[in-house]
């Protein structure tokens, strides 16, 4: 059994589950036929947590482990219907030739083919490895930054079945939080477009880090223009990026309205001592 087999161009990360599966299969073979010789060629055995017991168990049952290095990967050569495996053992520093009836390869687990297109469709972020990326590694592993979309299992990264199940339960719990309510209360800090001012320039659509604004035909823009931007309040994360970027100044962020942030000091106000706290913060002095 050869671990960490990586054809050129294949993903270069540890798939977490293969070592344990290899050991499980090795133990099963030894249980069925103790005479069967099982050799595992590996770079590093990753049997984390209590799975380490499988490693101990496999060794106890006589599975042989040989460590190879990246520089000298094993070579498999066909020979009259059988296979010869050439490998250099790292500890003995000696080449071996093994004759095998079966060669079992552990290859990395790649994200599902449609992941990228689905991510584009739903505007979801992907990790550098091409799996879906959660909102927060520790705090929100089943959420996306986008509201109302959840993830679980191998879409996230290679997982064991019990990990997938816990993840799925967590995701279902989060989804229920939404589904179990008659009405949803969203945070008050959301961006609102004034269609009367929107020129439909798409700036907000492009700059929103979450891809929330859309241009809607049914909302005429400035001067009865074809369409204007719409920001779904239950999806908006309230970062305000679009409000600061909109060239027409058509978007306001509730709770952080322009008038709340900058209160122009004008006329007599500038001479009086009636400055508001915010005007004071922005540098105005009586």
């Amino acid at each position, binding site marked *: 059994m050869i671990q960490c087999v990586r054809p050129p161009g294949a993903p270069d990360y540890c798939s977490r589950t293969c070592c344990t599966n290899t050991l499980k299969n090795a133990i099963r073979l030894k249980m069925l036929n103790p005479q069967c010789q099982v050799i595992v060629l590996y770079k590093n055995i990753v049997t984390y947590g209590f799975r380490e017991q499988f490693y101990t168990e496999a060794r106890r049952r006589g599975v042989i482990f040989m460590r190879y290095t990246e520089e000298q990967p094993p070579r498999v050569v066909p020979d009259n219907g059988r296979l010869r495996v050439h490998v250099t053992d790292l500890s003995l520093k000696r080449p071996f030739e093994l004759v095998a009836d079966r060669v079992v390869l552990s290859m990395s687990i790649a994200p599902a083919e449609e992941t990228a297109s689905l991510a584009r469709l739903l505007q979801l972020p992907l990790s550098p490895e091409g799996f879906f990326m959660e909102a927060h590694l520790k705090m929100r592993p089943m959420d996306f930054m986008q509201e109302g979309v959840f993830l679980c299992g191998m879409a996230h990264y290679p997982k064991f079945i019990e990990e997938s199940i816990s993840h799925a339960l967590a995701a279902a719990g989060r989804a229920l939080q939404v589904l179990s309510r008659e009405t949803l209360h969203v945070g008050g800090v959301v961006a609102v477009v004034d269609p009367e001012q929107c020129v439909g320039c798409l700036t907000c659509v492009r700059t929103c*880090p979450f891809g929330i604004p859309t241009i809607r035909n049914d909302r005429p823009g400035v001067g009865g223009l074809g369409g204007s931007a719409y920001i779904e309040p239950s999806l908006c994360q309230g*970062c305000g990026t679009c409000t600061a970027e909109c060239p027409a100044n058509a978007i306001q962020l509730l709770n952080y309205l322009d008038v709340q*942030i900058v209160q122009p000091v*004008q006329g007599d106000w*500038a001479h009086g001592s009636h400055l508001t706290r915010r005007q004071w913060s*922005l*540098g105005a002095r009586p």
Partner: protein
Amino acid sequence: MSVTPEPDRDNHNTFEPQITAFYCIYCGYMAADTAGVLRLQYPANVTFVRLPCTGKTDIRYILQAFEQGADGVYVVACPVGNCHHVRGNERGYARVQRARQMLEAVGIEGERLDMFFMSGGQGATFALAAQQMVDRIRRLGPSPLKQPARAAPEQHHG
């Protein structure tokens, strides 16, 4: 304090700069909080304006602060790549850069505007940023906008 002769806009020894700082409610606010918890001292010249994310720093806000009498303005954001709104701080940074060019164009030193990135735990960095800005503005002197208008017959407000 070493006194830099140039540019010299009178009485910079007694000059107390007015500085406006915009910070985001995540790392910026947390850093301020940490600074407070650690009982760190930083100059009282800085007044703060809270934003949900520095992605909200509108160029207008920055310019308005200068217009209303701030001698310096700075923005405190989450570390790059750690913005709680993904890229808000990067967009904010781009805007700070643009605002700098605008300031330069009208004869206000670009140094008067700056942006700092820090995580919520970096209270000392927060205090240091405030101190740095105050020192820098003290060296630069009062905002050129506060100088009596040379040619204009009457002063305008707002």
